[in-house]
């Protein structure tokens, strides 16, 4: 029972970290490798606002969310826009931005156990005989909330529909008067804000470390690759598969094997179905 509950928690955690990446890739075909960097940046921002500037908790989270969204939009406007359509340059540029953010934070001396951000609600609750702390339950709530919000947003609001239109056919969307660059900026801001939401809900469970950034990037990408890049239902399914696989390896092997499981899952996906579990787009092109 404990395994089941914690697997669900880990799955939702993975989903939360991955959904921003999936959104950005799905809409603008840009692999935003800076995702992990933005995630970790949020952690430090919240910490800084709380402990250095003395802002209260709600203010700190909202300010960090806004700042990270602006950073994401800036990254698109000034860097990624110039290299769009050149896959090598896109990957190199966003990857080096990610490294720049993370190693920059490291060199500022933000390393150690002192960097934690508070949980929303303290204490634990017993669910079906297993003690679970409130924060993990909140993660589940926030995760489901984000998925629901995204579904409503992309199905019933104008900007959301425009984003989906771009994901399906950018040229046709442009013919209908959708400004593709503007929508991509919106999309990157939204994706970065989602990374920030994930950071704010997940980071209270542990310390903020720079390595977390790399792990988040890898897990996010793994979830998207396994689920099929650009397919959100796929991301949900893949997050659950990886989450359960991780908890099972922790339970029966040791935590060091997490990464191996992730890599094996990716390789298996490449061999069996390169476009991912539920990915339909570009199936022919990717498989050569």
């Amino acid at each position, binding site marked *: 029972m404990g395994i089941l509950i914690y697997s669900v928690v880990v799955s939702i955690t993975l989903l939360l970290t991955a959904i921003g990446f999936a959104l950005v890739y799905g809409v603008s075909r840009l692999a935003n490798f800076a995702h992990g960097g933005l995630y970790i940046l949020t952690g430090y921002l919240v910490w800084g606002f709380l402990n250095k500037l003395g802002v209260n908790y709600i203010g700190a989270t909202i300010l960090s969310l806004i700042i990270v969204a602006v950073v994401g939009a800036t990254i698109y406007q000034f860097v990624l826009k110039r290299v769009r359509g050149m896959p*090598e340059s896109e*990957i190199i540029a966003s990857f080096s*931005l990610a490294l*720049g953010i993370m190693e920059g934070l490291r060199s500022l001396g933000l390393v150690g156990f002192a960097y934690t951000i508070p949980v929303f609600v303290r204490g634990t609750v017993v669910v079906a005989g297993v003690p679970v702390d409130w924060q993990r339950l909140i993660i589940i709530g926030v995760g489901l909330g984000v998925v629901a919000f995204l579904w409503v947003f992309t199905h019933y609001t104008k900007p959301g529909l425009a984003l989906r239109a771009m994901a399906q056919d950018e040229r046709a969307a442009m013919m209908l008067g959708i400004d593709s660059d503007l929508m991509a900026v919106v999309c990157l801001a939204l994706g970065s804000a989602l990374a920030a939401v994930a950071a704010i809900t997940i980071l209270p469970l542990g310390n903020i470390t720079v390595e977390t950034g790399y792990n988040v990037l890898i897990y996010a990408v793994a979830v998207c690759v396994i689920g099929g*890049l650009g397919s959100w239902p796929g991301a949900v399914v893949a997050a659950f598969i990886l989450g359960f696989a991780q908890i099972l390896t922790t339970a029966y092997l040791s935590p060091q094997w997490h990464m191996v499981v992730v890599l094996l899952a990716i390789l298996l996906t490449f061999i069996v179905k390169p476009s991912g579990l539920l990915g339909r787009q570009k199936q022919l092109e990717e498989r050569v």
Partner: protein
Amino acid sequence: MPQEDRRKKRLDRGVKVRTEGIYAISAPRDIAYLLIPRLVLILGLLILPLLLQNIYWQKVLCIICVFGLLSLSFNFLTHFVGIVNLGNAFFVGVGGYTSAVLQSSFKLSPVLSIIAGTFGGALISTTLLLPCLPARGIYFAIASLMYPLLFPRIIEALNIFGGTDGVIGITTFPNIWVDQYLVIIVLLVTLFALRRLVNEDFGLILRGIKDNDQAIRASGIGVTWYKTQGLFIASAIGCFTGAYLVHLYGWAGISLFGLDFSIFPIAVSVVGGSGALVGSVVGSLILVPMSETLRAFGTLRIMIYCLILVGFITLKPEGLMRYFTRKYEQFEHWTRV
């Protein structure tokens, strides 16, 4: 002329056109035009160790060549095979460990263990990356990014190959001259061999795969097999640098899988000129000494590389070498539109 109604007109220099065919050997001036840039590079690299008196800068020269080689491998994979490899450190690590383990367990001579590390390591890393090869672009980039992050953890978890202490007591080279000339000669040979290779039929097929793999497949050529060969060549170059570094330091550790070896070659090849193989050497000659002088900044260095990288890729995507080549081969002037 106002800025908006002018454009730059470029014309090939006469001497460039004349030296394209067999007639290049008809006049001393044409021969000089062709030979001087090449000789400057070759002789320059060969003489440089004699000019550097300080042992510190002699070691830096070795590192310059190491990064030049790694960047050649990255450049070749990206611009001629069409797969972006973000995990160059994986090649370094695999080559280094293969060579180190062979050396410490069988007491091979350094020559043999470097050769074994190069080709054995290339075989291992190609085999491990093989499942990812059908994937392109971002897919391969992601998978290759994971490998160098993964292997140190496996080594730590299983406590094999000396665990976190690494493999120690490896025979080093007899003196600093062997250190330098070995890697310089390998660098030059690799550079010119790769340049030759990409203009052969083999290289044409690889470039075809990069541009339009469906067309290559339609011509009845096995795409994955050619990609595998390309990957093997690139990983052999990477593994050589690993094996060389292990013998240079007399030690192999998980720092061989470090981030420096992944990101720095990319920076070098972007600064030097994407797609121009010589650019890797030139970029390395510029960036590595710069990075040595920035050593005091610690990990801030990586951030500085990243800023340079982003700056170059957005503002000057052609890189330095392409720029110089253009100036050498063409003259340009403004014309009214």
